[in-house]
């Protein structure tokens, strides 16, 4: 990610939220994005998640430049490569956990057959420890369980990047711990790149690298990737090679 600016226009006033952020996240990293509220970390996360486009600057995801993609192309990209976990879970109400997890398979460039989608969803729910709760609706699940459903949903299309926006914001410390351990596990066992957005240093400490954002700029990068590779190409966030074998 190179020199990313994001400016919101409020009335006549240009309000710069990101003022030239450059960073690089390698495949398989677990990064915590930290910053006080208003520092621009959510905006940065939206751009990382291809939900939003930067006002200027460039952003590569697996070597693909996102900045110029059309809305539909970005939708496909989100569907295939990015999983989202939200602070407030965002599960579909009155829908079983299984259906919730299957939901992303309904979209995307090519449809996953129903049976395969269901198998995947079941396997993922087993994995997050909700094998016996597949038919429960979100209202029948605890916060931690809901967040686990949300994680399973984020994983169902086998993304390479998992974006978690304050995933523990609505959970008590014990469940938070469980969820964070799950992220660590996913990162270590599956090699999924994880970006945690948080303002809690305790949460951030689970990540191997912490990026602090302040007033739209990277203030502090505790472990900025592999330094040797940065100057060569454009400093690209994420992995440079598109299709590496995933475990």
């Amino acid at each position, binding site marked *: 990610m190179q020199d990313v600016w994001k400016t919101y226009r409020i009335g006549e006033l240009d309000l710069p939220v990101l003022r030239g952020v450059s960073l690089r996240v390698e495949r398989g990293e677990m990064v915590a994005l930290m910053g006080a509220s208003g520092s621009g970390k959510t905006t940065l996360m939206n751009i990382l998640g291809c*939900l939003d486009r930067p006002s200027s600057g460039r952003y590569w995801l697996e070597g693909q430049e996102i900045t110029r993609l059309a809305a539909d192309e970005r939708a496909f990209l*989100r*569907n295939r490569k990015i999983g*989202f976990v939200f602070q407030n879970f965002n599960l579909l109400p009155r829908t079983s956990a299984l259906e919730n997890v299957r939901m992303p398979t309904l979209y995307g460039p090519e449809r996953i057959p129903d049976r395969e989608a269901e198998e995947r969803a079941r396997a993922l729910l087993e994995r997050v420890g909700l094998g016996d709760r597949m038919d429960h609706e979100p209202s029948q699940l605890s916060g931690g369980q809901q967040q686990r459903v949300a994680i399973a949903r984020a994983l169902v299309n086998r993304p390479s990047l998992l974006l978690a926006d304050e995933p523990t914001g609505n959970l008590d410390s014990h469940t938070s711990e469980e969820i964070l351990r799950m992220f660590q596990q996913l990162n270590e066992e599956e090699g999924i790149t994880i970006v945690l957005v948080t303002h809690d240093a305790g949460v951030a400490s689970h990540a191997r690298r912490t990026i602090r954002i302040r007033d739209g700029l990277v203030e502090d990068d505790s472990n900025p990737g592999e330094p040797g590779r940065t100057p060569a190409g454009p400093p690209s966030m994420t992995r440079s090679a598109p299709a590496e074998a995933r475990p």
Partner: protein
Amino acid sequence: MRLLSRRFYSRTLRTAFQALRRNIMRSTLTTLGIIIGVAAVIAMMEIGNGSARTIEKSIATMGADNLTVASGAAASGGVTFGGGSADTLTPEDAEAILAECPAVRAVAPLVRTRTQVVYGNRNWVPLFIFGSTPDYLDVRRWSVAQGDPFTDQDVRNAAKVCLLGQTIVRELFQGLSPVGEEIRVKNVSFKVVGVLSAKGSNMMGMDQDDIILMPWTTIKRRISRSALRETNQSQAAAGDTAQRVNSLNDLYPGQGSLYPLPSANQLANNPLPVRFINIDQILVAAQSAEKVPQAIRQIAELLRQRHRIGPDELDDFNIRDMTEITRAMTATTHLMTRLLLCVALISLVVGGVGIMNIMLVSVTERTREIGLRMAVGARARDILRRFLVEAVVLCLLGGAIGILTGRGSSMLLRNVMKWPTELSVGAIVAAVAVSVTVGVIFGYYPAWKASRLDPIDALRYE
């Protein structure tokens, strides 16, 4: 290609059903709007159609389906004698009309006269003394209040029987039952076999109950040809004036024959051609008021053929329909149709607004869901289709239930409250077509709005 696959459709539909089932209440309310719209239209149209048909029927009893065939005008030396003065219509014409014109329901030959009738010490000159067949009652949709109508047998025998109108009963019998009594017309006794029901005055203000009805053969043969002439002075002038034998004519001097009576010799030298029995008018009832023009065409064609009228010659008869009544009827029917249309439109608009409201609420309510779906990779197009399919499914469901409800309620009204209703296939088709269209249009706007949402804003929406 994907758009065309059946599996794709079944999946889209299933997803829509799932979404609708997820919020049963909202779906039910939406459908209710359509159900009410469609049902209201169908029920209103059926009730309206039934009422319109009933109104048409009652107007038809006034004679909207009636036609009068009168003979044309006779002319002599450049002087015409007015309509009906030519003796060209025969009873056979009447029979032929009934047999050969498919648009004709009933036919009655008509012979008129005007003379004094006597009962006991009272006398009266009825406005109408009509000779006809029992079919006359059918043509005029007139019923017999008391006694029985005369029969075809009576017509063949020129039987001395008659039916009296209410006014005659009042004047001659002073309200006593006349059935079985005898009245005298021109010194011929007639047995009263029945009394006609009251009909009131016609549109010209003439008392239609001031009538004596008898077999036309009786008038022709027993009340004499000359009496017939009395109804039409010009015709009388055109005919053989010598035959006029009526004491009334002597009331005014100077009305005697202008010409000397022909001697026996003269008559022998100028034999008159054999006279066919002619009748004054033929009364025709068409199958329905709408078929009147058709009936007129068929009768005109038939009579021209029967009367051997060449292509360049004018008709020797006149056919008149009840223009005034027909106009009233058309006006009424149009009014009813317009009224029904208004009701239907209002119902549909109400239903449509209901659909739109619920759809908009649904989109607002599901903003976060839309945001989420977009975040995990749904394109604007996917969102649009999703909402559109939901709208269409709701509309079709509502339409189907609406048809059943509408039909059911109109049937209930007919069976329980005895309201006249009539099945209207057009209404069903129109109601469903329009409400589905309304549903799709009103479903489209919220769907489009949903697809325009920015996923970031949508996700943050509370």
